[in-house]
């Protein structure tokens, strides 16, 4: 009966393609929007995600997310280092600055200051130049996207002089760094130089990043640091979610994306369910004939579920393929880097499509189950 079911499905070409289109559309819309949403949320915590050497982030108790900088006095670093279970703790600067290129181009940048000696907090991967050169006088490293923003279309040329907050500095390397939420270039320098370049304040240490000793639970360590220093201490994972949750709660982004994803589900489900329902309804006499000649309800259920599975699988495969292609094409666009299709999203879309097709099948099959096969005797 499986082959019969497939022939029935493919025999109605317009509806067959309509069903596939509905599922493809729903899959594409849901997976693409959810993936972009996740990409955006990951961007809000990009510096935390990049800096995986640190187990614990320590900050002012009022800080709610990574872009909210409330500087701490330098003495707090010693206080953190003295907490039992801390392997190391180093300062980390984060702030905004304005750079001026040789041709007069002005650009706001995210300025990150990493530990002068250990270079903990450095970008995850160097693309050009050496990380150690950051310790040379006035040296800085810029992320790839930043270089392309400031010198679009130009070949890599190092070293390169720029001004930052009216101070002359030299770009000595280009690194690969995760895209931040706002697409500002990210420049790295040593902590002491970052503090010098930044606008002077009474306190300037943005964060302290710390590593737990072997065998020490970072969550416990964070609690101990908090108790010992009265500072806010979070594991990198908790801080990442704190930052993401801030955007979730304080911006309309999740609502907008949520609406789009829900629309994708509803439109996809409606198109698929309605087309499938019409497909079954227009074949009701044929189903009646099958029932009359002795095809059982279970056999018909299996036929309908097989038809739904085939249509769902093809539609999903095309939809998720288009989605993957979309992100593949995006990967070459500097401003949109960092967006990708997580496997969890692909899995979630598969589950959603399964639900859609189950709903469509149930709505349709009910009509067949209650169908009086005597309908076939009516002229």
């Amino acid at each position, binding site marked *: *009966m499986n*082959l*019969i079911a497939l*022939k*029935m*499905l*493919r*025999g*109605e070409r317009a509806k067959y393609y309509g069903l596939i289109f509905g599922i493809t559309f729903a899959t594409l819309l849901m997976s693409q929007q959810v993936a972009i949403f996740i990409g955006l949320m990951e961007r809000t915590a990009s510096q935390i995600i990049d800096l995986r050497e640190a187990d614990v982030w320590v900050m002012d108790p009022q800080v709610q997310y990574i872009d909210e900088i409330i500087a701490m006095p330098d003495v707090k670093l010693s206080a953190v280092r003295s907490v039992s279970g801390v392997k190391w703790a180093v300062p980390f600067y984060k702030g905004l600055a304005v750079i001026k290129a040789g041709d007069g181009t002005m650009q706001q940048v995210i300025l990150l200051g990493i530990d002068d000696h250990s270079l903990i907090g450095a970008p995850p991967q160097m693309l050009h130049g050496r990380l150690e050169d950051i310790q040379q006088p006035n040296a800085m490293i810029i992320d790839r996207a930043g270089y392309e923003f400031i010198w679009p279309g130009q070949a890599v040329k190092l070293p390169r002089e720029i001004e930052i907050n009216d101070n002359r500095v030299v770009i000595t390397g280009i690194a690969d760094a995760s895209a931040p939420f706002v697409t500002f270039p990210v420049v790295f320098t040593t902590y002491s130089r970052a503090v010098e370049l930044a606008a002077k304040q009474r306190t300037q240490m943005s964060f302290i990043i710390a590593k737990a000793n072997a065998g020490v639970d970072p969550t416990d360590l964070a609690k101990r640091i908090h108790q010992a220093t009265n500072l806010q201490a979070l594991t990198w994972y908790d801080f990442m979610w704190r930052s993401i949750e801030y955007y979730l709660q304080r911006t309309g982004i999740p609502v907008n994306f949520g609406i789009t994803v829900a629309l994708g589900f509803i439109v996809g489900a409606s198109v698929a369910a309605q087309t499938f329902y019409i497909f079954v309804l227009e074949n009701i*006499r*044929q189903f*009646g*004939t*099958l*029932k*009359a*000649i*002795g*095809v*059982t309800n279970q*056999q018909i259920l299996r036929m309908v579920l097989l038809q739904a599975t085939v249509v769902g699988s093809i539609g999903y495969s095309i939809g998720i393929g288009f989605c993957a292609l979309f992100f593949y094409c995006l990967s070459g666009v500097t401003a949109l880097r960092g967006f990708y299709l997580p496997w969890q999203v692909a899995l979630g879309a598969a589950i959603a499509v399964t639900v859609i097709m189950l709903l469509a099948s149930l709505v349709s099959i009910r009509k067949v189950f209650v169908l*009086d*096969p*005597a309908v*076939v*005797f*009516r*002229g």
Partner: protein
Amino acid sequence: MTILTTHQIVKDFPAGDGVVRVLHGIDLTLRKGELTMLVGPSGCGKTVLLSILSGILSATSGTIEILGTTITTLADRPKVLFRRQHLGFIFQQYNLLSSLTAVENAAMPLVAAGMPLSAANQRAALILDDIGMGRHLDKLPRQLSGGQQQRVAIARALVHEPALIVCDEPTAALDAQTGHAVMEILRRRARDHNRGILVVTHDNRIYPFADRIIAMDDGKILDDQPNLNSLDPATFPIAPSPSNHSV
């Protein structure tokens, strides 16, 4: 030999606050090798009786016995399986599956019973060939004429060799010549293969093909007599062959 007997079949349909009785205690018997016609004016209850006799519709009261099994007491699933094994159906509008070829349509009862598709198609092809459709095995219903579609429906009704074949107005959508060709096939099957065939019709052009005619009106059997005007089998026209068949 008796295939089917009924005892006091009654069928009521709800209507408003009450019920409408459409069958008033029907008693009848169908025998092997016999083509029986159930005739009567529209609305007299022929099709309802046909649906009940074939186990598609439930009777309000009364019993039906087919090949020694009382189908009125069977549960739904056993009834469906019984129908699949022992009954064949021919419908007024053919009711072929539009996406399947002639041979696949004819093979449906065997496939439904679990026979592999290739074996079922092979057996269906033999039947189709036997009734003059050998050249049209791979055609879709829309590529066939009405008469050809009805032949495919006949093949579907015969392929699993049921003891009883029920036909609902099998010639209503066909011209006289095509209708006669279809009836020839059915009557030959009844006689040569010892099947019981019940034909519901009000097409008096095909009455000569009946061995017995049961007349109904107002939900009651008025008359049940052998057909004295039945065509003599010896005078039957030659059954259409694949080469000369034009139905």
